[in-house]
């Protein structure tokens, strides 16, 4: 990018800007169409309560997609980790052991995914599709198909720490997911593990000849995503105080949508975690927003599709090139006599 001609160039440096704009526009629209709901704080507290599990899943998936892979098994991990936790709480009254073992169960699922993808070279879409069916099957089998009610969890330390209410209103899971986002942003953008993932997603051969342990990194990646998905499952189970064997089903496509509208490329090589954050809140707010406008539930999916398409298009035209073109055009309008010199790039 040419620094002389592009005054608005810094905008392109701001990660996830186009998608943040979409979120703002969306909320402003909702404020007009459903003022009674969207001008109060309650709806936002409700989003902070429902979006975090999805955001946590989307953070993990951003890494997977950046590495040029895909993981379809995370909804099953949400169910499995929820079961492990509730079982240990209900039967042994050992929530913290259940918590750790739930994370470990996610690591196990992820590790096996990693073995299949990195060592046996099964395409990740196939390996993790099979894993989704398999681990849902395992969960339903050991849970006997029954849900487990853990209403007694409310008020315990673990419940207060992860999904309690700060000042009585603010859901703590929103802070946990935000903290994870910041932590994983540094891992992706400022750590050699994240750099290895970007190069592998860009071109695994380049990574290999530059001395990156491609198989080992992929193993770690899938294991990490398993743990992250298990944590999302824990947040969900703690919040709703109940485990049901099909929990997580229906999260696959919204989470993928959140990652893609956030600007992470399906081609791999670059991940936009800030975009994933805004993408998750867009996807998580749409249904409530559309319903609150009163145009009826039948419209929800249509509007969701439109917003997703608009976000992806914005990401394309407001990419690095887009902003420099926009800025030059803007200057031309402002100072017609001093048209800036053409930018060769």
């Amino acid at each position: 990018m040419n620094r002389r001609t592009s005054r608005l160039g810094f905008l392109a440096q701001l990660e996830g800007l186009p998608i943040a704009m979409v979120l703002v526009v969306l909320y402003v629209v909702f404020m007009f169409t459903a003022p009674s709901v969207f001008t109060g704080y309650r709806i936002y507290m409700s989003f902070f309560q429902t979006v975090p599990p999805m955001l946590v899943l989307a953070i993990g998936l951003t890494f997977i997609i950046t590495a040029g892979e895909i993981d379809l098994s995370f909804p099953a991990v949400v169910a499995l980790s929820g079961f492990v936790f509730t079982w240990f709480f209900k039967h042994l009254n050992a929530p913290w052991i259940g918590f750790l073992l739930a994370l470990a169960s996610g690591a196990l699922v992820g590790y096996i995914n990693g073995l299949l993808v990195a060592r046996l070279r099964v395409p990740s879409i196939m390996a993790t599709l099979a894993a989704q069916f398999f681990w849902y099957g395992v969960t339903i089998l050991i849970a006997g198909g029954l849900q487990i009610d853990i209403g007694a969890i409310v008020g315990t330390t673990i419940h207060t720490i992860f999904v309690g209410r700060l000042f009585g209103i603010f859901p703590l899971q929103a802070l946990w997911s935000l903290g994870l986002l910041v932590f994983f942003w540094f891992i992706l953008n400022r750590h050699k593990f994240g750099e290895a993932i970007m190069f592998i997603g860009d071109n695994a051969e380049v990574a290999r000849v530059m001395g990156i342990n491609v198989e080992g990194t992929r193993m770690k990646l899938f294991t990490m995503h398993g743990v992250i998905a298990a944590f999302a499952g824990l947040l969900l189970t703690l919040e709703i105080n109940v485990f049901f064997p099909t929990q997580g089903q229906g999260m696959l496509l919204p989470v993928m949508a959140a990652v893609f509208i956030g600007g992470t490329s399906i081609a791999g090589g670059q991940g936009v975690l800030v975009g994933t954050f805004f993408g998750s809140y867009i996807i998580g707010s749409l249904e409530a927003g559309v319903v609150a406008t009163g145009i009826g539930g039948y419209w929800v999916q249509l509007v969701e599709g439109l917003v997703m398409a608009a976000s992806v298009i914005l990401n394309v035209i407001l990419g690095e090139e887009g902003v420099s073109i926009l800025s030059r055009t803007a200057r031309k309008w402002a100072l017609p006599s001093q048209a800036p010199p053409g930018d060769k790039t």
Partner: protein
Amino acid sequence: MVNIEKYFGSVCALKDVNFEVGKNEIVGLIGDNGAGKSTLVKILTGVFPPTTGELYIAGRKVDTGSYSVKKAHALGIETVYQDKSLGEKQAMWRNFFIGREITYPFGFLKVKEEKKIAAEIMVNTIGFRGKGIGVDSKASKLSGGERQGVAIGRAMHFEAELIILDEPTVALSLKEVRKVLNFVHKIKEAGKACIYISHNITDVYEIADRFIVIDRGEIVAGIEKAKISLKKLDEFLLEYSHGLKDKVQP
């Protein structure tokens, strides 16, 4: 490299290859597609081990079983591949340090330091000057010749004793080829050794001190530049490829 052999399954890619490069020597490795040039290079640089044979670097025997790209880097062997040297979507500073990051404890990157050194290499070693390409530019913005320049500059920064260029001028325009050849001259001036692999005999002839011809997994000729003219070398290769010439042992 002594008696190196490499099999992929039952396919013999290299057969009884003996090969050496002297200090500050530029060796041109010539051979047709599938002759085994790239296999030879990948063994030398630790991408995969040979099936049998021994590898000596700076006089010391290398354990081929545990040899790796990282170890090759540590021993001063760097490779510039025709199209696999840079991550297209990654910033220049990342491309310089990938696999050898400068880090804080726990592996977090020292971004400022990496950028500063990358900028120095780009200006001093490679000679990028105010063309709107900086350390934050992505590799996809560079021309083919510039990419090879970056890869060679990177190799020289990490004090490579031996730089291997694998078909660095394939798919480049004449002007870009010129740039790459100038970079290779810089390697020679810096007192380093180089293996230059190419189809293009004219390029190889200009820069190499010695030529090695490889065919169907075997080294068939080793010729000093002083003993042969470009025309003779060209004729020799043509004759060889038509099967008119017997093997000439180096």
